[in-house]
């Protein structure tokens, strides 16, 4: 899904996002849809600038989204329309795993009073005791039922975390990083046979959906208790409003209509955020909205290049293109282990060996050979959770000596006072930013320094500040929310000593290479062999910074080239090989730079007005410049558009094809064509059957639209890949004013993360705590940007939102004697801050199962530096988070509010 595609939507539900406020430019497209007659719906605890422009605003308590979505699922499954319109049955049976039979061992939350089968106690490993799970699942029972018991569960896609705990408790557990001992055989010439050896019989299916163990029936039973009454009790949303949303969504889904969802960090920042998104995907699959124009789910990233930062990546647990990071917690000892653990035999991801070997070639260049398994043993391995909060918890214990902080302001970030305390334990810290942010100055101007609790003389951190360029001062690329790479060009020279991030890291790397060039230690060989050559050709140097690295050389390495001749770039990931003949850091970016002088990310050619296209000549979107993923599903099982109005990609049975490039054998007529790049094997007919010995796409049928999934189906039920269960379940946030109404014995997710649980600085309020009775949520405003480094120093933006405030309803204000603009104290178990009151009816009291719950909200942009200053709202938040992705729960927690 990409924002422009929203103009094709008939209904657009924004949930977990304040899109108009935080993505105002992209909001152009929902407004176009509205002009075309689409219905816009906002489900949110606050009435925001987004709600103001929607047809329906449904207020819900922060953190109760799964109850609301689960209610929609239950409503849809039992509706007359869904059960009588043949479209839904055809889509769901053909393209989802609804018909797949699940293991007899699986037990649902309905069977076990709120938990799934496989829950075990979690014990931390001694080496890096920051994984912080409060519990853990053994997911073996969640798998599809296999015709043979042997090999059960091997058909599902491994993702970053799956299998982690299994291995952690196995024989490899506790083995330190650093590679295996003893000689290994060289890598094979081709990994195809290895992948083929992983092949298992396909799972059983019941296309009638009657089998009580099929994914559909399990899903139906799982959500049966999410009735409109229960939705109202848990979320506080009046039933009439909920039903209005459900009916609007249902009426605008089908063969001739599509509905889309958008979410942002208000769905991710929870202890069950991944499950919220999964729940939405389940609903959209049931409604047949995936892979179709104006349908799907749009993930609104919080920053212009956040998508790029996770693609390339800055995530600790993945390497380029979302391949799992080699880890000691899984069977990753050798390259063969890594590939057999991570590769599914079916689906496009069966090409992982090609992606991985090409990646290793980009890392180690000529030093990576078949004999040394392409240098895999040199590659660093992770030993646990190295996410932000785990790192800070370790830092607070003095286990981290130095930090380089670029593009981030942790002094005002989650549980900020604890992060400042952690940074004061560092020996050295580098801050590279446009301004002297709170992180750069916290050692002499933080609140705890100003009030005398901490003395500057007691801090032994050496702090270095590097001034940084802004975006218009260098050439480079963004990858933004629609997975689209857009090249940008330098417009002005940077002032003074400001340098780019690429300059900083390139020269830091060069100096570190020199520092280790004489080392013979085994652990340094990888670093010594790392390719690090991005020098600009002398003729190209221009501008003030002459030793700036060559951005296009970096892009070439990411996008791929023939190892033997770097001037021969790759046209796409179909050209990647697992024999070392191709070099490509990020398989998903392969093809964006197909020849010297042809940087496709720099294209700026829109489609002509009125043309039904996907603007394929504007920038370049991964994968393969495809704009709507899984778009095979935009055609019916026979390959025809579901309706003329929703035409996108379809099968042209008469199209002639070139003969097979390798064998010269003629290819039968027929081809997928359309407005977009088809997301399917181009010449595979809709009625094609899988090849019995096939791997990858050859193992898929003409109906397997979800080509990245090993079974080719969209997953209603998620047999693998998530650590907190195969189906979304309503749990309460860690801090909640009420007991879990759905499962009284299971208040929270049984496996969320709680870092530094025993520490005073990270205590949490108990359920219904009278000292902290109000629900608080945090958010952003249009006028400011993230932690403020790009807005609070700029007068034109600061004047628009000059001070921090807390939004509260009139009932709470009256109760506490607070008037508009009065100073207010806000307190959580972690901290206490001050802000001015903004009293409004846009937020207020909710009725949660008979209990009056006040809702308040605060924007979190402020700190003590810059023109516009205010207390650090993130001082209120805690280090509890999602077990899959380690993000904190910043969108729903508890506080108290008093007049100052």
């Amino acid at each position, binding site marked *: 899904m990409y924002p422009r595609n929203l103009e094709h939507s008939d209904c657009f539900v924004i949930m977990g996002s304040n899109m108009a406020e935080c993505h*105002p430019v992209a909001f152009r497209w929902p407004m176009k849809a509205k002009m075309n007659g689409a219905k816009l719906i906002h489900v949110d605890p606050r*009435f925001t600038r987004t709600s*103001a422009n929607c047809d329906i605003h449904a207020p819900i308590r922060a953190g109760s989204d799964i109850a609301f979505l689960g209610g929609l699922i239950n409503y849809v499954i039992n509706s007359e329309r869904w059960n009588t319109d043949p479209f839904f049955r055809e889509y769901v049976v053909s393209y989802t795993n609804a018909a797949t039979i699940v293991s007899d061992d699986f037990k649902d939350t309905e069977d076990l009073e709120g938990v799934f089968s496989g829950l075990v106690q979690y014990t931390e490993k001694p080496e890096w005791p920051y994984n912080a799970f409060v519990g853990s699942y053994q997911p073996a029972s969640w798998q599809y039922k296999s015709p043979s018991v042997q090999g059960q569960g091997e058909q599902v896609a491994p993702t970053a975390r799956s299998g982690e705990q299994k291995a952690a408790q196995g024989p490899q557990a506790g083995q330190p990083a650093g590679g295996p001992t003893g000689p290994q055989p060289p890598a094979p010439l081709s990994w195809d046979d290895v992948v083929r050896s992983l092949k298992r019989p396909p799972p059983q299916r019941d296309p009638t959906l009657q089998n009580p163990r099929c994914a559909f029936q399990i899903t139906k039973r799982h959500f049966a208790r999410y009735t409109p009454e229960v939705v109202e009790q848990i979320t506080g949303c009046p039933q009439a409003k909920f039903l209005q949303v459900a009916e609007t969504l249902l009426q605008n889904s089908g063969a001739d209509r599509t509905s889309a969802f958008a979410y942002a960090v208000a769905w991710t920042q929870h202890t069950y955020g991944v499950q919220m998104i999964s729940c939405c995907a389940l609903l959209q699959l049931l409604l047949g909205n995936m892979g179709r124009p104006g349908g799907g789910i749009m993930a609104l990233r919080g920053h212009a290049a956040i998508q790029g930062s996770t693609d390339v990546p800055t995530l600790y647990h993945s390497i380029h293109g979302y391949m799992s990071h080699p880890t000691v917690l899984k069977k990753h000892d050798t390259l063969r282990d890594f590939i057999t653990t991570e590769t599914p035999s079916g689906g496009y991801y069966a090409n992982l060996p090609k992606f991985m070997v090409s990646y290793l070639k980009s890392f180690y260049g000529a030093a990576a050979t078949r004999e040394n398994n392409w240098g895999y043993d040199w590659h660093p391995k992770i030993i646990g959770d190295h996410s932000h909060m785990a790192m800070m918890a370790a830092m607070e214990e003095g286990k981290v000596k130095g930090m380089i902080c670029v593009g981030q302001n942790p002094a005002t970030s989650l549980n900020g006072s604890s992060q400042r305390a952690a940074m004061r334990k560092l020996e050295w810290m580098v801050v590279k930013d446009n301004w002297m942010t709170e992180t750069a100055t916290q050692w002499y101007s933080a609140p705890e320094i100003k009030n005398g609790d901490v003395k500057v003389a007691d801090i032994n951190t050496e702090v270095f500040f590097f001034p940084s360029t802004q975006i218009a001062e260098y050439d480079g690329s963004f990858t933004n929310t629609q997975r689209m790479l857009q090249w940008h060009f330098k417009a002005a020279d940077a002032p003074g000593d400001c340098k780019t991030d690429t300059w900083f890291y390139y020269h830091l790397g060069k100096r570190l290479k020199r520092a280790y060039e004489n080392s013979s230690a085994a652990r340094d060989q990888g670093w010594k062999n790392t390719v690090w050559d991005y020098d600009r050709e002398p003729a190209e140097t221009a501008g003030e910074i002459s030793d700036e690295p060559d951005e296009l050389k970096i892009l070439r390495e990411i996008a791929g080239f023939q190892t033997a001749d770097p001037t021969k770039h790759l046209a796409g990931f179909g050209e990647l090989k697992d024999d070392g003949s191709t070099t490509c850091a990020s398989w998903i970016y392969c093809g964006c730079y197909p020849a010297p002088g042809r940087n496709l990310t720099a294209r700026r050619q829109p489609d002509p007005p009125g043309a039904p296209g996907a603007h394929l000549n504007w920038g370049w979107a991964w994968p393969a410049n495809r704009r709507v993923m899984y778009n095979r599903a935009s055609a019916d099982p026979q390959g025809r558009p579901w309706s003329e109005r929703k035409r996108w990609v379809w099968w042209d049975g008469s199209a002639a094809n070139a003969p097979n490039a390798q064998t010269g054998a003629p290819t039968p007529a027929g081809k997928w064509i359309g407005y977009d790049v088809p997301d399917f094997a181009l010449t595979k007919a809709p009625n094609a059957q899988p090849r019995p010995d096939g791997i990858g796409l050859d193992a898929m049928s003409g109906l397997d639209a979800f080509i990245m999934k090993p079974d080719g189906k969209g997953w209603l039920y998620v047999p693998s890949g998530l650590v907190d269960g195969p189906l979304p379940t309503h749990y309460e946030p860690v801090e909640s004013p009420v007991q879990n109404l759905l499962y009284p014995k299971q208040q929270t997710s049984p496996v969320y993360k709680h870092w530094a649980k025993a520490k005073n600085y990270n205590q949490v309020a108990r359920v219904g705590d009278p000292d902290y009775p109000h629900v608080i949520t945090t958010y952003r405003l249009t006028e400011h940007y993230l932690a403020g480094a790009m807005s609070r120093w700029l007068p034109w933006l600061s*004047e*628009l939102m000059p001070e921090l405030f807390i939004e509260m309803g009139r009932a709470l204000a009256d109760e506490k004697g607070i008037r508009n603009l009065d100073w207010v104290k806000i307190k959580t178990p972690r901290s206490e801050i001050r802000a001015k009151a903004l009293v409004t009816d846009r937020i207020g009291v909710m009725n949660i199962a008979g209990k009056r719950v006040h809702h308040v909200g605060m924007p979190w942009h402020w700190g003590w530096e810059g*023109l516009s200053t205010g207390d650090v709202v993130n001082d209120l938040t805690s280090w509890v988070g999602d077990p899959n992705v380690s993000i904190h729960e910043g969108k729903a927690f508890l506080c108290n509010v008093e007049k100052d």
Partner: protein
Amino acid sequence: MAEAMGFFTDTTVCIGCKACEVACKSWNQLPAREGGQPELSGISYDNTVQLSGTTWRHVKFIEQFDGPYNGRWLMMSDVCKHCVQAGCIEVCPTGAIIRTEFDTVVIQSDVCNGCRACIAGCPFGVIDMNPVSGTAQKCTLCYDRMSVGLEPACSKACPTDSIQFGPIDDLRRRAQTRLEQLQSQGETRAQLYGADPEGPVGGLNSFYLLVDEPEVYGLPSQPKLPSRNLASSAAGSVVGAAVLGAVGLVTLRKRRSEDVAESERGGQPRA
């Protein structure tokens, strides 16, 4: 004269992002208020509060609620209306305020003497002094950009096309279509403000689509020109002049008779 140009502001698609305010200040290099550090206004999300000599765009936020979550939030980007009959032009004594070839109204800073007459003369409260230049200032509809074929900075920056720029006749047609669409969708309060050339002040070259009465948005339903009082004040002036003349004559006669009396007493005549 070139074609009459202007703005049509469709408030129903305004998302209150204030990009127009920032684009305006950036292009016209206008200073932030109080160095970018004013106090929080407490008026919804509006911290700009009013148009001024240094703020030529202002997004208004109107909360219409009846209890928590029950209501609507109106947003509207306000600007100089570029009236067809402009009060400011009527009262400007130096001729600093001109009607351009685009039928827009522009204050020439180098001719303005800072007398402030136009501030009182504007029926919409648009104009104010720019303390930096010492002259009255307001939106120029980006005369400099229009002169080279560019659209004004604010409409260019508007992400949702709430602010539309173009030939007035074209904008009026678009506005009428949108009005009918809204009315057919049941928004009975939808109305155009200033689109009628037969209406008050001869119509506005920056006109609006509203979904409530103009007063809700702080707009006068019947804007009045300074010249509305011209006839009555002229008559008043004639009467006043007659009275003053009579008083003067009487005074003169009295003074002369006093002078005569003084000289008869042997004193020096007054100088």
